[in-house]
């Protein structure tokens, strides 16, 4: 075996050098393209992706080439009888060749990858090379096994392929691209992603190769009758793999790798948490004044979006390159929004992001719907495109943006509506676009939505006929003097009687036709921006100003939070004085049903970054840095120092789950743990990961 290995190694070592050559060529190609073609970071990403994909394809090609040549080359040259005539058993010869093939492939791969890993790291990161390396290695091993199997069993056919090397490479590339597309179709990884059946095929081929070589008439293995068998197997694979892919389409793909938990959110009536877990950031090159800088961008494509069952911590749904899933009100279905089709395996060259919506039956891990509901609808790739279920769970809606905003927020000038099974999808253009992704809400009956327009006007849009009714003209007393209105949030009360709207109004003294305007009201009275919270009745007949405070440095903090019974409303805003020495102040706006004005509680935590949740009893639980507070609907601060304060020292509040527990995240350099806290005992139970 040793001698056969040595002979094979000496015979094939140029393959390893070929790997080095290819690595150098790809690196040089990357450099050439970067110098000659790249003008901005998008071009650079395209070059990175292109070179990365070549690397991804190179590895299996090398494996296939080495594997196919091990026996076929002996047959082709006629040296197989010489080899078999040596005083070694077939097992030794086979093993020597097999191990030499592995060693040669490994060396070629290492020598090909090393220059790239050193010189063009961004290309590797663009295609998530290191993440997919185990898959890639496994896929390459499988291709090696296939080619080695056919090399031992059908050497003449294989050697004919080898004789026409270009044809071999062409076929290999075709198969790989085909597999890559298939892998993309079934969920990001290559087709063979750790699946037991693929492993079984791999082992079966190796064993078949061994028995074929050691016990069969190898010299006669080029019998032509194997050709139909080869064609049959190839046809079977070609036909069966898409079928397998279709079967796999509705199965869960992966478990998240938790590096950092980001933006956890309770959905599904408090039964589940949706969150991001951050993977490795994507590095790209940025040009500043003719110099290139590498920069890490926390591209969501590197993230996992996870939906957790809060009672068990089990991952109900895990998807990569998506936004966090949103559970239906009954907690049975999850809708997840995907941005651009992640064609990392076939080369993702910047393309207009088609919006893909998936709806999953989380209990059975079945995909109910997956696709692009409307070709004309796009959500961009940033933090936009917030999606929500109608309160009755019959509709899914999301706000969209026709323009392509890769990183920044867009203008939400359209709304997509669809049934959970993907039917009845339609895009409603919004002549009255909301300014922010959450500046709209469902009416409790699920038949219409409320949208707060950019100028503060509240509109109810029927989903049945698309008609729009203005139900509130906005803050009329402020609008004539407003320079700009920034709508923060809109929320309909659970009983359907009220719509709460929060906004910030900016006033700027200006001039008109050469005359300086000094408004007597309200700009003179309120020279600084105002933070306003209104309560509007569902029929628009009455509106009520709940809260009005100067808010020059106000940071809009929270959604408008209704208590479960709709008898209390909270809104939290933080303000920063701008002086580091001063403590922050946080306003808690609390309103109870029947009141004509909200109460205001002011807290002074060490940070305005607070998390809030409404407790089942209607009180507000609020946590800030190492502090916890409870505020009554009357705006009374009942707890500032308690067991909660101690318990919350290392925890940040996410929300209150269906069992009344506080769901929290623990911060240890990063938020990387989720737990449930019993509010009566302060006991913390780890949930995830």
């Amino acid at each position, binding site marked *: 075996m040793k*001698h056969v290995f*040595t*002979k094979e190694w*000496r*015979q094939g070592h140029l393959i390893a050098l070929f790997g080095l050559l290819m690595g150098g060529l790809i690196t040089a190609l990357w450099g050439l393209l970067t110098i000659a073609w790249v003008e901005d970071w998008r071009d650079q990403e395209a070059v990175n992706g292109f070179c990365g994909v070549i690397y991804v394809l190179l590895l299996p090609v090398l494996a296939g080439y080495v594997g196919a040549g091990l026996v076929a080359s002996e047959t082709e*040259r*006629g*040296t197989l*009888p*010489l080899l*078999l*005539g*040596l*005083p*070694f*058993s077939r097992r030794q010869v086979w093993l020597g060749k097999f191990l030499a093939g592995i060693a040669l492939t490994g060396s070629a791969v290492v020598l090909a990858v090393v220059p790239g890993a050193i010189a063009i790291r961004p290309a590797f990161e663009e295609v998530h090379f290191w993440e997919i390396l185990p898959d890639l290695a496994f896929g390459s091993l499988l291709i090696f096994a296939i080619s080695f199997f056919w090399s031992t069993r059908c050497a003449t056919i294989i050697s004919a392929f080898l004789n026409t090397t270009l044809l071999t490479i062409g076929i290999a590339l075709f198969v790989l691209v085909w597999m890559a597309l298939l892998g993309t179709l079934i969920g990001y990884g290559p087709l063979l992603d750790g699946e037991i059946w693929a492993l079984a095929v791999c082992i079966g081929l190796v064993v078949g190769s061994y028995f074929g070589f050691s*016990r*069969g*008439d190898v*010299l*006669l293995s080029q019998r032509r009758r194997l050709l139909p068998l080869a064609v049959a197997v190839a046809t079977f694979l070609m036909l069966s793999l898409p079928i397998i892919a279709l079967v796999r389409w509705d199965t869960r793909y992966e478990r998240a790798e938790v590096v950092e938990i980001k933006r956890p959110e309770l959905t599904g009536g408090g039964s589940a948490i949706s969150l991001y877990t951050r993977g490795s950031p994507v590095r790209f090159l940025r040009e500043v004044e003719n110099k290139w800088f590498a920069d890490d961008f926390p591209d969501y494509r590197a993230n996992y979006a996870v939906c957790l069952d809060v009672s068990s911590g089990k991952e109900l749904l895990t998807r990569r390159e998506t936004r966090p899933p949103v559970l239906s009100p009954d907690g049975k279905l999850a809708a997840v929004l995907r941005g651009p089709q992640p064609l990392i395996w076939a080369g993702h060259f910047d393309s207009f992001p088609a919006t893909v919506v998936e709806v999953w039956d989380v209990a059975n891990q079945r995909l109910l719907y997956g696709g692009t509901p409307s070709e004309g609808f796009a959500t961009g790739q940033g933090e936009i495109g917030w999606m929500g279920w109608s309160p009755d769970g019959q509709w899914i809606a999301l706000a969209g943006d026709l323009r392509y905003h890769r990183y920044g927020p867009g203008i939400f000038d359209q709304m997509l509506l669809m049934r959970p099974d993907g039917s009845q999808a339609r895009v409603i253009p919004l002549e009255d676009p909301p300014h922010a992704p959450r500046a709209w809400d469902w009416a409790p009956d699920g038949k219409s939505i409320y949208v707060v327009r950019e100028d503060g006007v509240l509109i109810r849009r029927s989903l049945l006929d698309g008609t729009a009714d203005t139900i509130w003209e906005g803050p009329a007393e402020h609008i004539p003097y407003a320079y700009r209105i920034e709508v923060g949030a809109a929320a309909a009360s659970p009983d359907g009687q009220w719509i709460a709207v929060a906004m910030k109004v900016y006033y700027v003294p200006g001039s008109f036709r050469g005359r300086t305007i000094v408004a007597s009201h309200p700009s003179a009275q309120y020279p600084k921006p105002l933070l306003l919270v209104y309560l509007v009745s569902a029929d628009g007949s009455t509106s009520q100003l709940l809260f009005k405070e100067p808010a020059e440095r106000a940071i809009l903090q929270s959604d408008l939070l209704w208590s479960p019974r709709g008898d209390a409303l909270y809104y939290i805003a933080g303000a920063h004085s701008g002086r580091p020495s001063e403590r922050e102040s946080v306003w808690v706006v609390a309103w109870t049903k029947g009141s004509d004005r909200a109460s205001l509680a002011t807290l002074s935590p060490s940070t305005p970054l607070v998390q809030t949740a409404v407790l089942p009893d209607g009180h507000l639980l609020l946590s800030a840095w190492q502090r916890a507070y409870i505020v009554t609907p009357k705006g009374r601060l009942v707890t500032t120092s308690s067991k909660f304060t101690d318990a919350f020292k290392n925890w940040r509040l996410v929300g209150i789950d269906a069992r009344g527990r506080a769901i929290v995240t623990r911060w240890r350099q990063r938020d990387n743990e989720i737990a449930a806290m019993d509010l009566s005992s302060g006991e913390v139970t780890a949930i995830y990961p």
Partner: protein
Amino acid sequence: MSENEYAITSASLTKRFGRLRALDAVSARVPRGSIYGLMGPNGAGKTTFVRVLLNLINPTSGSAQVLGLDVVRESVAVRRRVGHVAALQPLWDWMTVRDYTDFMAGCYPTWRPEAVSKVLDRIGIDTQAKLGELSRGQRAIVSIAVAIGHEPDLLLLDEALTGLDPIARREILRNVIDAMQAEGRTVLITGQDIADMERICDHVGFLVKGRLVLESTLDDLKARVKRIRIEHPSEPEVQIPGGAIQVERSPRETVFTVEDFSSQLLDSLDGPQRRVAAEDLALEDIFIDLAQSHMEAAR
């Protein structure tokens, strides 16, 4: 002879390739220390027989032993003690002659480099040359030199002398085969050059269409197979008792090639107005007559 006295024995050895019987119940015996010439027309099964002995291909049925070892179950041990050269055997062209001999030396524990260099030096082969750069004949010489490097007890030369010039051929015959015989080792040689075989072989076997039709010592064969020429001016058709393997008739003369010649047979053919004479046959003539006879019979 006992079983141990045979370097090769086979019993009903059969190898089929689909419908074709490449070997058809071959039962051969090659005595130890002999130089055995296995002859046969193209496609007779000579190479198949050699490959089965080395277990390069598996027999369909029957059994064979080489040096007392079963060729299937103890194939590694067989190959360790057997040298083998195939006709126009392709070599690993990327190796130099030195690489090749070194590689082979590592494969056999009983390697004797001087035996190899002796042959290579006599022919004048540059050991630094790559095998791919050598002529066909030079490569054949390298193959033969390497095949005796481990001092095999049995050397299988499967048409290995093809492509050699007369000088090289003589060198190989003299320095390799004669030396093997002198040391009591066995050589099985197949090929079409009957003149060479007649010169060096002491045993011969005839394969025709996969069947071993004759196996004998060369001397015995030549004593048994003779040509009987009968001149008969008046007889229309002369017959011979026991039949002949080949008959050539002309109006005044009939020539029989008989497989079992004896003086009694000659006497029985004698008669009035006949002139009967027995002629010795060259091995090539015997081969041709036997082959034709059996091929016609097979049709």
